[in-house]
């Protein structure tokens, strides 16, 4: 069974739990005392990931780190429909990669602001927040036009992809970092749609949506 080095409150670990739940992949959670123990910075954990961060997965001896890389691997390996990471078309590969890099941005701004405000991480909070707002403005416009075209998801096509999974929790928990989602109504509607994907699970701080 896949081992996930996991911390319940980490958005990047949640992205893996969410995708595996949606794909119906069984996994075992190995709790890492990220906070307050900082176990991921310890010598023992560095044998798993020398960069000292989570999540990491161990799939029968294949060890992979970095949240968005793991999403690619899990979707490519465990989604027989090929919908969650579409390798059939170079444009779609490029598009997914583009939004996964965008998700690195939301993680480094919105989710970093959350770590600052909640757990006292020494980040430049003003920079995190203003960076998050700039990205959210771009995402808002993108999703607003998707809706106008009758489309629900970040990447082209009528099926969600790992890009939706990668950006979703950064957006959902942004208010914990003082980044309000009030000015971004199309983003708020999209988060409702993500919550309605069959197999959706919550993490602390995220509540389920009403059934559509």
């Amino acid at each position, binding site marked *: 069974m896949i081992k996930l080095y996991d911390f319940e409150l980490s958005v990047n670990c949640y992205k893996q739990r969410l995708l595996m739940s949606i794909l119906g992949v069984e996994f075992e959670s190995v709790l890492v005392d990220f906070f307050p123990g900082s176990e991921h910075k310890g010598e023992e954990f560095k044998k798993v990931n020398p960069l000292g961060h989570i999540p990491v997965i161990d799939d029968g001896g294949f060890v992979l780190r970095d949240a968005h890389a793991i999403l690619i691997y899990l979707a490519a390996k465990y989604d027989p429909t090929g919908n969650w990471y579409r390798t059939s078309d170079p444009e779609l590969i490029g598009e997914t990669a583009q939004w996964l890099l965008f998700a690195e941005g939301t993680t480094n701004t919105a989710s970093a602001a959350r770590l600052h405000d909640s757990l006292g991480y020494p980040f430049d909070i003003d920079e995190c927040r*203003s960076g998050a707002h700039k990205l959210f403005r771009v995402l808002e416009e993108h999703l607003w036009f998707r809706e106008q075209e009758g489309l629900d998801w970040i990447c082209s096509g009528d099926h969600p992809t790992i890009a939706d999974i990668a950006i979703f929790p950064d957006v959902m928990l942004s208010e914990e970092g003082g980044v309000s989602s009030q000015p971004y109504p199309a983003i708020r509607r999209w988060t409702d749609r993500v919550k309605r994907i069959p197999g959706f699970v919550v993490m602390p701080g995220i509540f389920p949506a*009403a059934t559509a």
Partner: protein
Amino acid sequence: MSVTVLSGTKSGWHPIASSSDLVDRHVYQGQLFGYEFAVWRSDDGFVNIWENRCLHRGVRLSVGTNDGAELVCQYHGWRYANRTGGVTYIPAHPADANTHSSCARSYVAVERYGLIWTTLDSETSLADLEVLDVLDDGQAFPLRPIDLWVTSETTISHLERIEIGCPTLADSTKHSDLVLFVQPVDERRCVVRGVLSERPDDEAKIDVLRFYSAELGAVRDGIEKSAGVQAAPEPAAFKVHPAVEVSIGLSSATNRQAAVPVRVRRRWNTATDVVGFELEAVSGQLSTVKPGSHIDLHLPNALVRQYSVVNAPGELDAYTIGVKLDPTSTGGSSTLHGEVVVGDELLVSQPRNGFPLRRDAVHTLLIAGGIGLTPILAMAQALDHQGLPYELHHFVRSQNHIAFADRLEALGTNVTHHLALDPDETVTQLQRLISSYTDAKHLYVCGPAPMLTAARATASANEWPDHAVHFEYFANPTQQDQSSEFEIALARSAVTLPVRPGESILEVLKNAGISMASSCEQGVCGTCGVDLIEGEPDHQDVYLNDTEKRTGKRLMTCVSRAKSSRLVLDL
């Protein structure tokens, strides 16, 4: 092409959303002058604009859920009804379905030009919502709203000076006029909502929208740059309306007892001998109705009859009742069947609930006989809507005697009809249904007297505790005892008023035109307290502590009564 820039005054009308923002089962978070709204469209299309705070503990309703008929607060699961904002259920107190009259603070909603409009001032009339010559409601085409990190004043002054281009690509809108509505969000932000006077052809639609999104986006960047704004401003403090204006439903003040005029919107034969009536408000909004409630219907011949309201959650555009023709009618059902037609006006009381539904059962067994279906059907619809486990057994003479068959059909396999059973067969069937009791099951029965008796006997034989068995009009809906009768003397105004069983002191005072502050109306918050000069109070509240109760110097007018025949109040 002409460009018009418009923005209302503090008390005027403002757009706060696009119609297309209010998608199914979503709660939109709106803002105007620092006030925040939870905006949601119900499944029946109604747009609700409410202050974005739960009455209970101030949590934003926009983090709650829109279930199509009610908005559910995320904190304690309080349910608020479509259209009225009335609290319909408080899960912490499942037996108290009857005791709340609070309503979310709501604002007027108007849809025009593809936008949702509201005003902060309830006195502002609809006529003040300017009808623009350049815009025709049917043709108006709303653009992507653009949010700005600067004030509306700054934005307006820039917009009045700029040129906005015209898309060359879309012939269909090249003569279109553009109106820019500037919505002041708070002291630091605004939203520009553009509307074109002409709707482009479908194939050009996206291109037109992209053109203006880019054009207005560039304008936004220019304004922010010249204002020296580089980052999103901190959200302004949430403005809360003054306490006196918050809560308190439409009905809780002086007119709780008063009848309101309704008009027969629809009348139809729903089953043999049963006529259905839909009664809509002649003006304004009907009050919230909870499952199991009834209304008093004032008939043209001056008789007053009670009818259970069949409505499902969130269904508050009309009250639906079913009237069975009673062969021994003394003028109630015969008048309704024989004389009352569509368009007639009647008076109805506010809904009252003598048969409240708990929603904390692991299983709810609903049993109805004949027209006793009406309150039971309302309960079934509420349970069904919330996805709570239940079954409804309907004892009825024949297929043709099944009233509201469409509503029953929508409940699917949860409903079983038991047709044409004789009295013995009915008893046998009831014995089968009301079998052994297990924890947290609840039974509700409404029907003819022999059936009620048989159902009660069966429940008791199978060791159902009394608290799990509910019969219409037999259950005491609250823990308060309202049976005493006494009088209150108001020391300062030298008035004496009688308080009859079923009335609270607070209601009597309000009905007498005395202005009384109140909030929870169940003896919890202390708002409606008054000093007591003389008499022995029967407190029944939980606000005062034991010592305060013993000294008897103060009482809560919403629930406290008298043990003595008279109380003298310092009013």
